[in-house]
């Protein structure tokens, strides 16, 4: 019996991570999920958030932007739309994106069409969230 989890993070473009880890915390759509070895089978949708894992006593994080996670036996597969490790994140760019998104959200409605305005708000809210998560991950270590 293994006391480690096999963690795989893949996106449509590439494999981000493949490692044996001790535990994983996933940003599930209904809240954070901690996964330890021998977890029951689980399939969940992931929100934009911070996925952290513990490996060899170190705690590391990856920014995940929407996807699925499947836990089966001792393997955790994360199928993310986009995933970035801390090294890959441009902190300055994320900060700029955050302030830009904030500005747009604070400004008054540019369109009188309610639906248009709504979808614009949603877009910038998710941008804001992504920027926020990126910064958190970049400053994680």
């Amino acid at each position, binding site marked *: 019996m293994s006391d480690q989890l096999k963690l795989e993070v893949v996106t449509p473009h590439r494999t981000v991570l493949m490692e044996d880890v001790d535990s994983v915390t996933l940003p599930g759509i*209904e809240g954070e999920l901690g996964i330890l070895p021998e977890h029951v089978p689980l399939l969940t949708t992931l929100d934009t958030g911070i996925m952290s894992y513990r490996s060899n006593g170190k705690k590391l994080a990856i920014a995940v932007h929407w996807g*699925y996670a499947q836990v089966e036996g001792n393997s955790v597969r994360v199928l993310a739309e986009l995933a970035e490790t801390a090294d890959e994140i441009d902190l300055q760019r994320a900060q700029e994106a955050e302030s830009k998104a904030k500005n747009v959200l604070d400004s008054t409605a540019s369109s009188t069409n309610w639906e248009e305005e709504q979808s614009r708000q949603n877009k910038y809210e998710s941008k804001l969230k992504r920027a926020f998560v990126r910064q958190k991950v970049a400053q994680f270590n």
Partner: protein
Amino acid sequence: MASLKDIRKRIDSVKRTQKTTSAMKMVSAAKLRRSEDYIREATPYAVKLKSVVSSLSTRFEGDEQDTGFGRLFRNTGGKRTGVILITSDRGLCGGFNINLSKTLARQLADEEVETAELIIIGRKGNDFFKRTDHTVLANHTDTNPGEQLALVRDIVSEFTRRFEDGELDQVILAYNHFISVIAQEPVVEQLLPIKPPEAESADEREIIFEPSPEDILETLLKKYVQNQVYVSWLDTVAGEHAARMTSMDAATKNAGEIIDKLQLHYNRTRQAAITSELIEIISGAESL
């Protein structure tokens, strides 16, 4: 008979053509390598997504025809068809595009679909289908690799929505499968209604779903369809470069053969001219 100058001119022109074809071959070889890398990087995601879907495939059985994800399996047997056709933007790659277009046209004819609605990626497929009775809804050309995924998402969600609303009875995907550098195969396959992949080893244990199984399965299946299209596109791009590489290689070889023949012809003609000049001089000298 062609003069020496004419032959020389032809040799030069064929040499220039040969330079172009061999350069195109090199460019395609480099691009092929890169697109093979793209495929390699996209494969793990595709494989895993497929295995997630197939491990859940026992849940698809049953006839929940009108609720949530059940609609994606609904088989009405109608003829209203949507097609996603993936071809290349440029020619000079042998029968690559035309074979695919013809295979698709034949299949549509076999299924007695008279006017399918097509969304075509690549200029070459559009050139073929705009002359037929089928409707071309959109033609996307010169797409950057970075924009592929977003475009696929838009195209697929549009078709999926219309399929769910009952406006379409089936959606077909046509692309070139990259087998090897010398072999590409036109593939026409059904996207919707979804044909679930074969279950490998159905996990009998109870699985926890978060949120509900219905919500997850619906988005997961749509993602699965999208990914199928995306991977097929990468496949086609690699196939295009491979096809261009082989056909340009053949063109370069043929040009070489023509140059050899012309050179031989040139030498013989030159020899003949010298001989006839000599005969003239000798016979002139003799008559003195």
